[in-house]
């Protein structure tokens, strides 16, 4: 791990001061968590982001099953959470597509425009259509419920939110700290002027 903060690495600080805004790194950070940092030369940070974000997303799927990633869920919290999971990257979209295509089906008893749904315990999926289960048949998956579902959704949502922070850092890292450092150098001057005004040493007519 050789990545250092600019304050401790003057050469790195100079690089950051000239780059400013890096849209390619931002896009890469969305495509694969950590890739934006990795390509920008901050490899240790990229690996950390990748392990953390993908570990959380994978952990959420392992705990709550694929039903925690559902953009068309009948549960509002899960449906809204997908907008946060979107920031994990294409992997979240692929998981959602697989979920909709392979584990949900059309209910022939409902109107044709009705959304697809999961098969209930006494039903099964047959070529994307839900029908009553015969002997030895059942739904292709068990839906997660209760705390396990909530924690699974939480894992995947936090993964998305953390990668959102990482995307912003990949987009705007360079120069940001340098500018902040320049501002902090100016700060004492401003405060000294203010102090002199407060103490009455600012000059002017009296």
């Amino acid at each position, binding site marked *: *791990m050789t990545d*250092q903060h600019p304050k401790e690495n003057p050469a790195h600080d100079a690089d950051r001061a000239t780059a400013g805004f890096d849209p390619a790194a931002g896009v890469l950070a969305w495509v694969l968590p950590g890739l934006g940092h990795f390509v920008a030369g901050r490899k240790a940070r990229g690996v950390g982001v990748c392990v*953390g974000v993908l570990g959380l997303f994978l952990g959420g799927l392992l705990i709550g099953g694929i039903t925690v990633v559902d953009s068309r869920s009948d549960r509002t919290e899960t449906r809204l959470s997908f907008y946060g999971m979107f920031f994990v990257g294409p992997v979240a979209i692929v998981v959602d597509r697989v979920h909709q295509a392979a584990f949900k089906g059309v209910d022939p008893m409902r109107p044709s425009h009705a959304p697809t749904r999961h098969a209930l315990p006494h039903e099964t999926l047959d070529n994307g259509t839900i029908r009553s289960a015969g002997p030895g048949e059942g739904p292709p998956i068990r839906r997660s419920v*209760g705390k*396990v579902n909530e*924690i699974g959704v939480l894992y995947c949502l936090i993964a998305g939110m953390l990668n959102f922070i*990482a995307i912003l850092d990949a987009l705007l890292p360079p120069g940001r700290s340098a500018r902040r450092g320049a501002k902090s150098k100016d700060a004492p001057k401003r405060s000294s002027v203010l102090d002199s005004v407060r103490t009455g040493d600012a000059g002017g007519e009296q």
Partner: protein
Amino acid sequence: MNLATYLGPFVAAYTPLVDPLNLHRQWYLLLVPLALLTAVAYKAVRTRDMRRYPVEVLVMAAQILLGMIALALGFLLFVEVLIPLLAPTPRV
């Protein structure tokens, strides 16, 4: 007694990434990896000196866990002690 005997109730008919784990009673244990992985990702972005990264990850994970324990104790006291004091209800 082998490992399967212990894990059996939790992983019965379990297909990884598709089916949920049967951890309804042990759900609070899942907060530990949640805190750790959150700290791993967050500190990768925010830490100043990557030489201190592992230490900062452990410190942040501990802070998250202690914060959640403190919140849980606070809510427990509020619900179990303060509310019955403020609005006592007769027990049947």
